[in-house]
Structures are given as C-alpha cells and as structure tokens.
C-alpha cells in the first residue's frame, strides 16, 4: 500500500531509538548491527538507508535532540565516507562499506532468519507446519465482534499485534497470520454493517428483489412504504436517488436490468454489491479491472456467469454479475453488455436458429466516473446511482469502533481530521490507521497531518475544479463535492489539462456577479494572467521545455484569490474557443475553394490575405448590380454593360450561383460562398441583394460563358501552338497538351467547321452572347410525344 511508503528518515529515527536501548557492544558502524530483537527486515532497512545518502546527516541531527545521546560530530562516526553533492547543492557524506563489513553484518543476522530460510528445515516439517497454520486460521472466525477470540488463538512465538514493534521497513502485505488488512478484516458482512446511505442500500436491494421474478420465480412483493423521512431529507435524497422503475417487461425481467453504481473510490461500492447480492441469495461473480475484458473474453464471461451455475458451490445459488471498474473497460465490451441487455429480437419465428442471448441475471456495474464518454450508452440503459460520500460522523464512529477492538489509542478529533483528509474514504482511513497502529500504536493529530495519505490520483472533473476555484469554502461543513480550496494548484494539477482550465476560466470569470466595481483592478489583471498563461503555453509547445508546466496551475490559483466568492457563480463551459476554431475553419475552406477556382490571370494578382480583406468585400458588391429587368434580352444598354461586367468578374473569379434548397424554398447561393466570408452580423449591407430571378439569369449566363470560355481556351491554345511552336520544348513539365476535340470515347472528332472558320466569323461569334455555336448544324429538341402525330395520306400521292 502506498501509505506504507514512509520517509527513510522516519525509519532511521526509529532505528536510532532502538539502538539507544540496545545493549552495548555495538560496533561503531551503525550499519552493521541490527538488534537481536530486530525483525528479519534488516536487509530492507539497509536498502532504504543506502538510497538516501543525504538523509544521513539529518539522522544525526535528529538523534542529537534525543536526550540520551551526546551530539557527536558526524565525520568521526564513520570511518569511510566520501562527500557527495546533492541536488540542492549541499555537501553530504556517504558512508562506504568495505566488503568485510557486509559479511560481518550478514553473520550477525539473528536466528530469526530461520523463518526465512525454509529450506533449512526438511520439506515435510514445513509442510506439516503449513497445514497446522491453515487449520488454525480456518477455525478462527473472522468477525469484528470477537477480537478476544483471535487474540487467544495466537500461538506462542508470535507477538501480540499491539506489542510488536518491528524495526525497519515493514511491508504490511507480508502474511503474518492474523495480520490481515483491516480493510478485509472489517469488511461488512451483513446489510446493517454497510456504511453507505441507508436509503441507497434499500433501493439497490429493491432492485435486486425485482429480479426474483425472473430468477427465482418468486412473486415480486411491493416493498413496504419507506418510513416517512422529514421533507427536507426526502428532497435531499430525491436529488440524487433516481426513481426505481418497478415494472417488469414481458420476459419478467426488470425494465432496467443493469444498475450503475458510481462514486469516488473507497466508499464501499464493491462491498455494497457483494453484500447485497449475497444477501438476496445470489452467488457473486466478479469481473474487475484485473481480468481480461476484451470483447470476446467479456462475452464469454458474461455468458458463463449468467447462463451457468457454479458447480462447486454447494448451495446452488444463481449467479449475480458484478462488473467492477467498468469505466476502464474497452467500449466494445460495454457494447457487448448492452447487446445482451436488449429484449429479445423481433424475429420470433426464427427463434430456433438464433438463440437470443438475453440477460437473465442481475448485473451490477461499478465505476468511479459515470460521466465518461465510454459509459454514455450504458447510462441510457441503466439506473445510475451516485453514491454520495459517507457521512463523516458515521465514518468516524465506525473507525472508533474498530480502533477500540484493535485496542489502539485514538483521539476523536484526529479521526475526524483523518476522515476529512482522505475525503471520507474508508479504505484509506483504515489502511492509514493500520499503518499508524503498526508504527506507533496510537493515532494523534500530528500523525494525521503528517501522513502522506489522501493524495489519490483521482481524476477531478472540470466542473469540480471550477467549483473549487470560484467558491470560497465554508468552514462549517464539507459539502458533497470536494473543494480543497487551500490547494488550488494541487486541484488543478490533478485535473491536468491547463489549457482547458484556462479556457473555462476565460469563459467564466467575466460573468461573475459583482465584477462591475472591480473593473479597473481585477479585470485587467485577470486578462494579464491569461496572457501570461498563453505565453507560457506557447513556449512550452515551441521549445518543448516541459519544465515550464510547473507554472500552469498558478493562473487558476490567482483567479481563485481574485474571484472566489460565497455566492455561486454560474460556470460557463461552452468552450468558445472551439466554436471559433470551427467557424474559422469553415471560412478557410471557403477561401481556399475560392482561390482554387480563380482563373490564372486573376490568381496572379491576388494572394490569400489581401484578397480577403481588400478585394472580396468590393467584389461582392460589384457582382450585385441593380438591374431593371431579369431577362437578358430585355436589358437596356447601360444595364447590359453592368451585367456583362458583373458576369465577367464572376467568371474570372470562378464564382457560380448554385441552387440550394433551403427552408423549403429554392434559392441561389454563391459558390464558393464568399457572402459568408465578407458579411458580418449587425452591419447593414450597402448593396441590395439580387432577386431570385436576377440570380437565375446570372447563373444561366455564367454556365453558358463557362462552356464558351472552355472552347475559347481550346482555340487560343491551338492558335498559340501554331505561332510559337518552338516553345513547345520547354523542359518544365505540364504544358497544357493540345486539346483536340475528342468525342465520348476518346476518338478524335473531325470537325471541319472549326478549322474552316474565318477570323471574321470568329469575331462575330465572340460578340454573341446567348448562343454558343461553332457548328453549322445543330439540333433542336422538341419536348412531347410523337405517337399521336397523324398525317392524312391520299393514294394518289403514292401513285
């Protein structure tokens, strides 16, 4: 357990104290002499000590405060030392052992080493000993009511739990008999021992009972009406307890077949699941994060759990599946689960071929964070139960109970502080207490504040972080959402993503109430800090100097000092930055499609940035001339010039009008849509937009022009080819190849008319607007049916 990771100096202070008490005859080299009463962990002690050379000096200082030991200058105590410069620049002396000393030390290991070296004894003896141990252990009832029994069962040779004061680093997992983890020892075995909220327990039990109809074929009894809580409490519960749907679907399963229990770690969720399932007559099958949860393995585990019974279990209980830590399961496995939850498929007739794999056993899922994206599907189909933290009084009462049984001295204020520090996490409280118990046997306030406990690697949600930053904590009670306001940098660090936090700060701080009066002081300061954070972030990104990330959390801390208030602030997390980014991407897309559709001669003149800012707004206006009529033929001369200019500009830029179906109406939009690029909201347009008919006219003309201009370029390249033939040997790739007219299949169409055209005809042609002929013969299609066309015929016409 991580709580057992004590500082080395701690170990060594204890060592010193022991040594003071030990009999004389110790060699000067401290390294070489553990006490006879020392446990076999002295190698561990040595290991620890050699890792912390700089701690050595501190040891001496510590011991110098102990009244019995005269302060001895460090250098003379050790014969072989050499100086080492530590990271913070201090000079420290590292004792160096000679090989002799190592041998000496190993020899002086006491004969407690017997226990370690199993092979010294013959195998059969060891085996019999082990058997005896196991027998003994089985007989000792592990219940928290009967500690005297277990104390009596201790064989000789094993020190009593409280009196053992082992030296050196002690690994608590080491299996000394009766040195179980308290979290295991005091695990609730019955319904009443559960520490979580009673109403919650009842609700989950109710849900489990719903399955009785399906599993046990018992009738589901409506639960007795819950004793009327006072209105306030009820409202409080109703806030986080969802409504249980008591109905059953047609296969007699509950409508909500899965329950999702969520909450911070160490509350007792897994215990709750186990106890309740066991209590309701199920055998618990657990699938947690240490099992293989790939979709195939998951499916087979699910099937075996729900469709088979445990053979070994004598009582023939049906299985109840508990899936622990489901937020770490791959989303495909969760999808497998969800598939099995759905009611039978509609194809009833084919039930012979496909056995619908439907869940017929209850499934309890446990997770820490129910709002993750992986669980979204599951949330929709399951009852979500958010387990609130254990109430502090209840927790400390339970802790006191346990400590009394373990005969450990405690101080109730210390217990309260411990509970708060760990966030009402009973598991970590118990382990801390067990650790303190093994070190000292009593728990006091200083120990609680000194321990390194409670700094879990919990992933804080952004909401939590923001809440912590923007609210001042009330001193009286700890609210349900943990806001450690004293440690904002730590809070933000536990979230990790500084950019998102800063973005959320940016979005939120400005809508804080009461900011008006601080316009001159706090607002510019807040923006300054954000600028600073942005600068730091850029430097990190560009130079990859990640040591600067240490500064990331202080912007939030400063915001806390500036903006925290007792009044709740509306947290805004609409992520304006992302929206802005999406919008600018769309605009960039428009711009690039515009640039790619311009003709080469235009593209020569304009590049990206100035086209947007200077040219486009005017072009947008130029292409919307006010025309008196919507028919090309009916335009008067002046309008005609305007029209021609406008279409010329549009085709030069490659703009087209596309017909779109918007809101049930057809309308024309510019393609690419420079209107969006140019227009801003709230600015009136200086040009009246074109009417639909005008746009129609434009689009028709433009299409024709496009066809014509393609032919023009063909002829012009053909002509150009003839004139400057020598230029054809340019080594640069991709001169436009001669575009000979080819038909649909790639065969060359011989068009006499094209090459025979005289220049006069060509110029004539260029002046024509609506017709694009270069052929003398054309086809005029007639719409309609021809089967009713009749012609009268007389015989004398034939003859």
């Amino acid at each position, binding site marked *: 357990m991580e709580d057992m990771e004590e500082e080395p100096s701690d170990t060594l202070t204890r060592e010193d104290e022991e040594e003071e008490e030990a009999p004389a005859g110790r060699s000067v080299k401290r390294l070489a002499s553990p006490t006879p009463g020392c446990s076999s962990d002295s190698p561990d002690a040595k290991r620890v000590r050699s890792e912390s050379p700089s701690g050595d000096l501190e040891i001496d200082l510590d011991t110098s405060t102990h009244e019995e030991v005269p302060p001895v200058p460090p250098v003379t105590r050790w014969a072989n030392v050499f100086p080492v410069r530590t990271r913070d620049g201090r000079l420290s002396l590292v004792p160096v052992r000679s090989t002799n000393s190592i041998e000496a030390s190993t020899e002086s290991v006491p004969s407690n080493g017997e226990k370690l070296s199993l092979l010294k004894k013959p195998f059969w003896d060891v085996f019999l000993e082990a058997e005896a141990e196991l027998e003994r252990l089985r007989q000792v009832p592990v219940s928290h009511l009967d500690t005297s029994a277990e104390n009596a069962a201790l064989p000789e040779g094993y020190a009593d739990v409280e009196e053992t004061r082992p030296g050196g680093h002690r690994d608590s997992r080491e299996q000394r008999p009766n040195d179980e983890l308290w979290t295991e020892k005091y695990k609730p075995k019955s319904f009443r021992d559960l520490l979580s909220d009673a109403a919650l327990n009842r609700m989950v039990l109710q849900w489990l009972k719903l399955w009785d109809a399906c599993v046990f074929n018992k009738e589901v009894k409506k639960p007795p009406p819950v004793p009327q809580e006072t209105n306030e409490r009820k409202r409080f519960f109703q806030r986080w307890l969802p409504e249980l749907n008591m109905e059953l679907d047609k296969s007699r399963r509950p409508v909500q077949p899965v329950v999702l229990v969520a909450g911070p770690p160490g509350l007792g969720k897994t215990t709750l699941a186990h106890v309740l399932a066991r209590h309701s007559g199920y055998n618990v099958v657990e699938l947690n994060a240490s099992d293989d949860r790939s979709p195939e393995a998951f499916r087979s585990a699910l099937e075996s759990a729900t469709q088979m019974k445990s053979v070994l279990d004598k009582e023939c209980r049906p299985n109840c599946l508990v899936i622990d830590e489901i937020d770490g399961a791959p989303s495909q496995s969760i999808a497998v689960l969800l598939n099995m939850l759905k009611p039978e498929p509609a194809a009833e007739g084919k039930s012979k071929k496909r056995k619908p794999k439907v869940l017929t056993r209850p499934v309890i899922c446990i997770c820490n964070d129910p709002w993750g994206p992986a669980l979204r599907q599951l949330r929709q189909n399951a009852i979500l139960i958010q387990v609130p933290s254990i109430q502090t009084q209840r927790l400390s009462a339970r802790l006191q109970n346990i400590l009394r049984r373990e005969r450990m001295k405690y101080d109730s204020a210390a217990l309260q502080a411990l509970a708060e520090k760990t966030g009402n996490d009973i598991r970590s409280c118990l382990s801390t207490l067990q650790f303190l118990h093994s070190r000292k046997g009593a728990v006091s306030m200083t120990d609680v504040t000194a321990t390194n406990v409670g700094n879990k690697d919990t992933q804080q949600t952004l909401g939590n972080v923001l809440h912590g930053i923007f609210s001042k904590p009330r001193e009286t009670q700890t609210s349900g959402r943990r806001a450690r306001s004293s440690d904002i940098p730590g809070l933000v660090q536990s979230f990790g993503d500084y950019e998102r936090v800063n973005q959320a700060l940016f979005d939120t701080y400005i809508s804080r109430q009461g900011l008006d009066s601080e316009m001159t002081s706090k607002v510019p300061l807040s923006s300054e800090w954000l600028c600073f954070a942005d600068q730091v972030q850029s430097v990190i990104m560009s130079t990859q100097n990640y040591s600067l990330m240490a500064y990331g959390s202080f912007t939030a801390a400063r915001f806390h000092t500036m903006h925290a208030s007792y009044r709740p602030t509306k947290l805004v997390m609409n992520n304006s930055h992302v929206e802005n980014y999406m919008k600018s991407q769309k605009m960039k897309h428009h711009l690039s499609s515009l640039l790619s559709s311009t003709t080469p001669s235009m593209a020569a003149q304009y590049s990206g940035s100035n086209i947007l800012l200077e040219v486009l707004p005017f072009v947008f206006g130029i292409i919307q001339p006010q025309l008196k009529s919507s028919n090309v033929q009916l335009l008067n001369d002046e309008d005609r010039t305007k029209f021609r200019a406008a279409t010329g500009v549009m085709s030069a830029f490659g703009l087209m009008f596309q017909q779109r179906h918007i809101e049930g109406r057809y309308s024309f939009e510019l393609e690419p849509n420079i209107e969006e690029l140019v227009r801003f909201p709230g600015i009136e347009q200086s040009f009246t937009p074109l009417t639909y008919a005008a746009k129609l006219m434009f689009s028709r003309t433009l299409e024709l022009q496009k066809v014509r201009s393609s032919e023009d370029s063909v002829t012009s390249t053909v002509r150009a080819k003839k004139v400057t033939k020598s*230029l054809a040997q340019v080594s640069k790739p991709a001169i436009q190849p001669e575009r000979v007219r080819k038909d649909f299949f790639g065969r060359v169409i011989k068009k006499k008319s094209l090459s025979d055209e005289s220049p006069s005809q060509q110029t004539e042609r260029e002046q024509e607007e609506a017709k694009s002929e270069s052929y003398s013969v054309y086809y005029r299609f007639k719409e309609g049916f021809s089967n009713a066309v009749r012609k009268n015929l007389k015989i004398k016409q034939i003859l």
Partner: protein
Amino acid sequence: MALYVDKYRPKDLEKLDYHKKQASWLKGLVNGGDLPHLLVYGPSGAGKKTRIMATLKELFGSGVERLRIEQQVFTTQSKKKIEIRTLSSNYHIEVNPSDVGIQDRVVIQELLKNIAQTQNVAVTAVQDDKERKKAFKVVILTEVDRLSRDAQHALRRTMEKYMQSCRLILVCNSTTKVIPAIRSRCLGIRVPAPSSSEIVGILNYIAKKESLNLPQELAQKIAQSSTGNLRKAILMLEACRVKQYPFSADQDVILPDWEIYIRDTANEIIKEQTPQKLFDVRQRLYELLSHLVPPQLIFEELLQRLLEKTDDSIKGRIIAEAALYEHRMHLGSKPIFHLEGFVAKYMAVYCEYQEEAAAMFD
C-alpha cells in the same frame, strides 16, 4: 470583362503612373545586364506585383502573360505530402510558400531545386534578337515575411547555390521579418504607397476611360479612405459605380464590412466600460477572428479608431499598452486573450481617467 483594377493595370514599365523615376531605373537595370535577386517591399496595394510583372515583361516579352495554375506535390521526410499551387508561365514561376504553414522550408528547398536544375533551353531560342542569353528563370516568392526562420535560412543557402539558373524576386510588406542574410543578398526595391493626389489622378483617368462622370470630392474621399492603397481605391470606385450611378458628390464611400465592424466595436468600447460590455466586445472579436482577419490588423485598426476618440493625456499610455499586448500576442498562440486583455486595459485606463476628471471637477 474584368475589374477595373485589372483592366487598367499597366503592363509595361513605361506605362506606370507613379514612381516614374523608379520605373525608369528598373528598366535600366533590366537592359543593363545581369539581374540580381530582388527584394520588393512596400505597403499593400502600392503596386509591387504590377511592377514585377512589368519588369518580367521587359525581360522576357509578352510570353510572361500566359499563365497557368499547377498543383505541385512534395513529400517531406516524414512521408507527408504537401500540395502547393504555383502560378507559372514559360519564363517564371510564382509561389507563396507560407501557404503550407510549417513545412515552407521543404517547399522552398524542393521547388527551387527542381526549377534551378532544369535548364530552360527554349528561352534562348526565342530571344535571339537580344544579345544576352537569358538562360535563367525567375522565381517569385510572395509573403516572405511570413516565412519561418528555418525556411529563410534554407532560402539563403539556395539563393547562393543556384544563382546562375534562377533569379529570385521576393515580395513582402515589410523587411523587418526578413533575416539580414537575405536582405544582404538581394537588391532592395521599396515601392512606397502612392500619394492621395496620385490616386485621384488615376481614378480620374479610369473614369475618363470608362466614360464616367466622377466628381472631384468623391475622388478625394475615396483616395483618403483608401489610405494609400491603390487597389482598394479602384475597387471602391467600381463598387460605388455599381451602387449608384450617376455619382453624387456626397455619396458614401463604401468600406469593407470588417472595417465598419471594428469601428463599431471601438465605439462600443468607448460608450460603456463594464464587464458585460467586455463580454460583448469579446464576442465581436471572436467574430472578427473567425472571419480570418489577421489579429495584428485588428489591433492596428482598433487602436486607430480608439485613439481618434481618446483624450491626449492617456493616448501615450494606451499606445504603450497596445504595443505590449501586441508583442505578447505574437509570442503566444491565442490572440483572443491578448486582444481582450488590451480592451480590458483600455477600459480600466479610461475609467480611471474619467474618475480623475470627475474628481477634479468636484
């Protein structure tokens, strides 16, 4: 059938309307012998591209005007493909390397290598009436002040290596972002913005050609609001003509929407200084940014508009703050933070100033 800008763009060095001395000097340079690498800089709309095309025409003849667009594909070392559009004729190629973003270095190296290593055989055959052999190609690189430092160093190297077979013409708005090594390898040609009277002259010429009746006051107004940008001025003229013709002297000059938007934003800032207003301004800034207006330009315009309406006593401070925020904006990556910071600072300074002024009157 094109915009007035393109229709009346001079294609020859002789036909340029302003900076005539520079034009004749350029002509002499072309005719006199070997062409060095050129760095043409100046404000937007002053006529840099026009002059370059005219110079090329002087060099190579009218074949330069036949342009085609190509997409060229390069692969980087990490096997990523970069596509870039190039505009080329038989004698020159024009490319904007900053289009690709970070990998502009690759584009420059590969492209220049390709071009420089292919000898243009055909060119010599055409120019047989001129004595010199113009065996080089011209590469026009636009927006070189947006190039990354790596790209600029790569360019420097390439410039030296391939001096014989290709000549570079670099175009930018200002030389501050071009490293000195490149500046020293090129001949700098500064194309300053035309003066108001020159713009008015050109507008009158265009009006005459298009047989429009242009009142002088309108021409003056257009020239002034275009702030030395000839392209903008001519476009404004055309837009005004489309909107309302015959012209009237007091016609409104049409501004691009974003300028109007910034002007309105500045008015909003001056009107009220509260957090709510800051929030609204923030939304407006977001709108501008999403319309791809460069944040630097937003800063400049906004500052201009704000300064028009602030008191002299705080102007200095405001300008200093603006410089600070703008500088930091270039160091950072989220311009909205810095823009809003500047606006918040402006509001704070303005509030203080108002309070002081009020206190003085008490």
